[in-house]
């Protein structure tokens, strides 16, 4: 098997298929985000939309280590994680359109995509809300004695919540197979990281819980892959949790509609030049692993996939009003009145 390592310096033990897969995952996430952003600006999607543009290497590199039966928990900025775990972009798009055929039958929306069959234990509207849930999945794995793992995605801002501290402590004490993957994208909404925490490296906190911690370049998909691989291997073999900080940047505003006046255009430019997809694509091309033609073909197939997803989302029916009353425990009296 040809590995990327054999042709690229510093590239790790990744097969060419895996490398191409990661590129495609990143490109698919980007296409999904670009499409959703356009639809949202056209007023066709309700609710909030938090874009992952610029951070794709983290989800793609991390999830490339996972099996279908592994778990993830995600965030309000969750499309990328969910796509990287293998979710169906048609059903995601239908959910963004608030349609009956969406992942949550139109009741969750962009911030709340779940796919329990794929181990996606939910994107989350509560910052830090997913961290204990991933920890609980880790506990269940341990008690059921399987070799599954859970990756818990969360942001730099979330790492200030009590739920972060409490969960990492629990996971370390019980040696749970959880990878805490902090996406440090430099901001929690408008607040720069240096203004919301006094430790520059979030991974430094790992030692306070008694688990390994490391920081990785979140713009480099192979670096993320490698770091997570080591943590996943440790977790699968009973070695307990790891805290990984991936340094990255959100190119868009906090949500679509936020013009992000709190950051400089120089900063934005700096990170635009570090686009993870562009960089990886160039790397694969210059190593002769893929050709310009392959890239074009990949883009074309993704475009078609997105067009189909949008069509599906748009043409799907809205939920019936009755569905507002389904999927929740309801108390009714003998006359059928809700009580």
């Amino acid at each position, binding site marked *: 098997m040809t590995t990327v390592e054999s042709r690229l310096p510093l590239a790790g033990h990744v097969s060419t298929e895996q490398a191409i897969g990661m590129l495609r995952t990143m490109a698919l996430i980007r296409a999904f985000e670009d499409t959703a952003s356009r639809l949202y600006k056209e007023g066709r999607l*309700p*609710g*909030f939309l938090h874009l992952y543009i610029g951070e794709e290497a983290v989800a793609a590199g991390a999830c490339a280590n996972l099996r279908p039966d592994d778990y993830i928990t995600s965030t309000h900025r969750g499309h990328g994680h969910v796509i990287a775990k293998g979710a169906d972009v048609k059903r995601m798009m239908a*959910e963004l359109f*608030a*349609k009956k055929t969406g992942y*949550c039958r*139109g*009741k*969750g*929306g962009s*911030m*709340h995509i779940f796919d329990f069959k794929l181990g996606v234990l939910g994107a*989350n*509207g*509560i*910052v*830090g*809300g997913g961290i204990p849930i991933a920890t609980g999945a880790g506990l269940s794995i341990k008690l059921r004695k399987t070799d599954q793992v859970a990756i818990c995605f969360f942001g730099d*801002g*979330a790492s*200030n*919540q*009590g*739920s972060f501290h409490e969960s990492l402590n629990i996971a370390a004490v019980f040696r749970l197979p959880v990878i805490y993957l902090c996406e440090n994208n430099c901001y*929690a*909404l*408008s*607040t720069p990281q240096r*203004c*919301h*925490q006094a430790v520059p490296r979030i991974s430094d906190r790992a030692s306070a819980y008694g688990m390994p911690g490391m920081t990785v370049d979140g713009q480099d998909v192979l670096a993320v892959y490698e770091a997570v691989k080591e943590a996943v291997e440790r977790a699968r073999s009973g070695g307990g949790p790891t805290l990984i900080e991936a340094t990255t940047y959100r190119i868009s505003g906090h949500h679509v509609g936020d013009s992000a*006046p*709190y950051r400089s255009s120089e900063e934005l430019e700096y990170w635009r030049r570090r686009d993870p997809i562009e960089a990886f694509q160039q790397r694969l091309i210059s190593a002769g692993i893929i050709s310009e033609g392959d890239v074009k073909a990949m883009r074309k197939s993704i475009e078609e996939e997105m067009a189909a997803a949008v069509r599906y989302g748009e043409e799907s029916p*809205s*939920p019936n*009003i009755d*569905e*507002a*009353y389904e999927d*929740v425990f*309801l*108390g009714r009296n003998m006359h059928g009145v*809700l*009580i």
Partner: protein
Amino acid sequence: MAEITYRQAVNLALREEMRRDPTVILFGEDVGRYGGAFKVTEGLFEEFGPERVLDAPLAEAGIAGTALGAALTGMRPVAEIMYIDFCTIALDQIVNQAAKIRYMSGGQVSVPLVIRTQSGSGRSSAAQHAQSLEAWLCHAPGLLVIMPSDPASARGLLKSAIRENNPVVFIEHKLLYNMKGDVPDDGEPIPLGKARILREGNDCTVVATSTEVAKAMGAADTLADEGIEVEIIDPMTLVPLDIDTIFSSVRKTGHLVIAHEACERAGFGGEIATRVGELAFDYLDAPIARVATPPVPSPFAPILESAILPNAAQIADAVRRICLRGNVNGRIHTYQAGTGRDH
């Protein structure tokens, strides 16, 4: 009189109180230069600086507790919790700590703390960003709870809340921020615990909170055309509740409808209904009716969200249902407009 938005009214109250009292400080996520997620604190960082308008880390329990600690030791903090849904994370500090410290300490200390937050549906924010949790807070002894429904009440009540020496939860509504209304030039605080009658009528009392006030006013116009005169009461403060104003009105009208956006089950409407049942049973000519959200989480799809939210038509229906009860029960009724009574 000047016409300003609800958002500007809250901002103005904060500004005026901060100018008046140097111990008033703001603490919350992105409240500084960014001006808050709903732009309510815009311009305050520029005027008062980073020592009085503090961006907090993303940590609601920490925000509420830190503000409380400062309140116990000489400051008069106004903490912002971006969504009332996130107050659940801060509930230990709000309910177990802030609400109890004065009492548990045998009255050694006052707790001049305001927690500003915003609640409500209407924007497809889905189940974790659209709740109305005021009843949770009303249930905790020790807290005052305020829900302003327009710019003038927002400004006047917030000023009183900031001057109050007990902890106050001040609940704005995300759909009201752009609402315009006149505010008086004098900027006098509005006393807490006093309801206001927004429209007088003899046939039916409607008690409505927050966004339901405007809906009730709309319903009242429709009903007036049908010959039913509705009296609308906005309690403004839920704790302490001005039950006397509600009681006097019900004595006059004999009918009561309560409208709020929160889930009907164990909602604040139940508290009002019980009080009226206890105090004014003999004056009621019909069962009390509630108009509220059914006990389901807030759904994302706009079509579902609007289907479960109470609206003006439902308020009008509830008024008709109890005022024209004979029609519904199949009993003969002779409704006499203007008397508020079935005969």
